[in-house]
């Protein structure tokens, strides 16, 4: 399978000597939904900046669908869409003009772009606002506009740098659905985010970058599978005053009706249920603790 993105020994040292990237290498398969995670200052935005020609690399190779961005930048750029972290459109223009102009920058004429722009704006819930000045849009709508802009030339590789930062939960979920949909339609997506739940929900593969180095690059399932302890949340039938003590299963009472258990990988959850039953504790429902990736992430960037 071809790589949508292939990065080899990429280095970036900023004027002043800050070494943001210390020779990172990773590849993203065509059709993948890939999470690039890392703490602030890890090198994520530098990497994305170099891919999108916003940052000049110090050395290394970047290939987009096997096209070296050094040699044939124009062809590589035609296949790339980038949603930057910060708002980067002219705030004084109308929504529709911003997207049509962006299409024009990719050599798409207005007549050719208009039907496509209409479809994207409708899909992102922006069509009703097409004639308003962008500066009057709320934060969430500005984010949608950024995505519309990046998609107007139908890129095969879409990179989103924290697209849901500062966006409310409802809109975030809507964006997830939208991104899943375009990924299913064949667009390779690379996502950076601070919401690890977002990466866990959406991405199949994951790279974690820290201190300018890739510390892990693997499948999401494999990574989560490497967790030795999993957290489970039990909703209880009747309230408890304190967490029961059960050998081998550390338990914590979050509130009188919510019990959280840390279950080791080599232990059976059935055993825990049996012990809870023996103590007369009835469980109404159970769910996974949502911070599995968070635990791993913290563990990895601590190393």
């Amino acid at each position: 399978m071809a790589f949508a993105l292939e990065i080899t020994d990429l280095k970036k040292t900023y004027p002043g000597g800050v070494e943001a990237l210390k020779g990172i290498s990773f590849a993203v398969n065509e059709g993948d939904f890939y999470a690039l995670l890392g703490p602030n200052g890890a090198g994520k935005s530098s990497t994305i900046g170099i891919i999108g020609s916003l940052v000049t690399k110090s050395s290394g190779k970047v290939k987009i669908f096997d096209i070296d961005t050094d040699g044939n930048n124009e062809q590589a750029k035609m296949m790339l869409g980038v949603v930057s972290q910060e708002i980067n459109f002219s705030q004084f223009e109308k929504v529709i003009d911003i997207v049509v102009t962006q299409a024009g920058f990719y050599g798409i004429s207005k007549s050719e772009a208009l039907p496509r722009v209409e479809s994207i704006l409708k899909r992102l819930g922006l069509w009703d606002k097409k004639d308003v000045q962008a500066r009057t849009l709320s934060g969430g709508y500005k984010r949608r506009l950024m995505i519309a802009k990046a998609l107007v030339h139908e890129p095969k590789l879409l990179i989103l740098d924290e697209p849901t930062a500062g966006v409310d939960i409802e809109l975030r979920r809507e964006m997830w659905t939208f991104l899943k949909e375009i990924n299913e339609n064949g667009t390779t997506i690379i996502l950076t985010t601070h919401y690890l739940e977002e990466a866990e929900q959406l991405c199949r593969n994951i790279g974690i970058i820290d201190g300018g180095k890739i510390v892990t690059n693997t499948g999401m399932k494999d990574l989560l599978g490497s967790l030795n302890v999993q957290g489970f949340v039990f909703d209880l039938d009747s309230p408890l005053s304190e967490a029961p003590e059960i050998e081998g299963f550390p338990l914590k009472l979050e509130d009188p009706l919510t019990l959280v258990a840390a279950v080791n990988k080599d232990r059976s959850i059935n055993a825990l249920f049996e012990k809870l039953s023996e103590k007369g504790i009835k469980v109404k429902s159970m769910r996974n603790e949502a911070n599995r990736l968070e635990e791993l992430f913290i563990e990895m960037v601590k190393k």
Partner: protein
Amino acid sequence: MKKNFSVSTALWTLTIKEIRRFLRIWIQTLVPPAVTMSLYFVIFGSLIGPRIGSMDGFDYIQFMIPGLIMLSVITNSYNNVVSSFYSVKFQKSIEELLISPMPNWVILLGFVLGGVSRGILIGCIVFCVSLIFYPDFTVANPPLTILVLVLTAVLFSLMGFINAVFADSFDDISIIPTFILTPLIYLGGVFYSINILPDMWRNISMANPMLYVVNTFRAGMLGVSDVSIYFALGMIFSFIGILTGSCLYLLNKGTGIRQ
């Protein structure tokens, strides 16, 4: 996905975007030069002009018209590009251009064409205003006039672009127009012929590049000039060449726009 990138569509898009920008804020861009120049014509042309008498054999107001048109073209071409490109940097919408497949020469040409369009439009507005005060004005050499008008707008658009590339604040985009460009234009023969100056000041004035631009344009409109037209045109073309090369070098290097 569109496979082939159309350079002409991209250039057209950027140019139209630039023209739309200055037309959208016409109160700030088109009206002030018309008002200011009307005042110049009233005060220096109609009220003081008759007392001054003739300059190089022309009525003073007639002599002043090419100079004032050039003054407007130079400042507006320069200001259009410097403010537009700096705003694009400031608002980070430069990223739209850098991420796109547009070659650097298209980005430069798009901004320059925006500046040239505004410069020429303002030049035409000021000329129309001048006709209110001096309806008998006739252009001596229309092809030369148009050529110099366009070349001047190109030259100062390029200068504005370089200023914007290096600008880090809004102060930086007003320092050069205020403290360098405007004094040089005013002392470059907009209001007088350098023949009326003492020898020393005339020689010093010959080192002012604005003198060549203003006088070449005056040669086109009135048929008289204080300097050699061929030399002046040669200088203008040379500067355009050097500045174009410099702008492309800065863009390719990413100065002021790429980290």
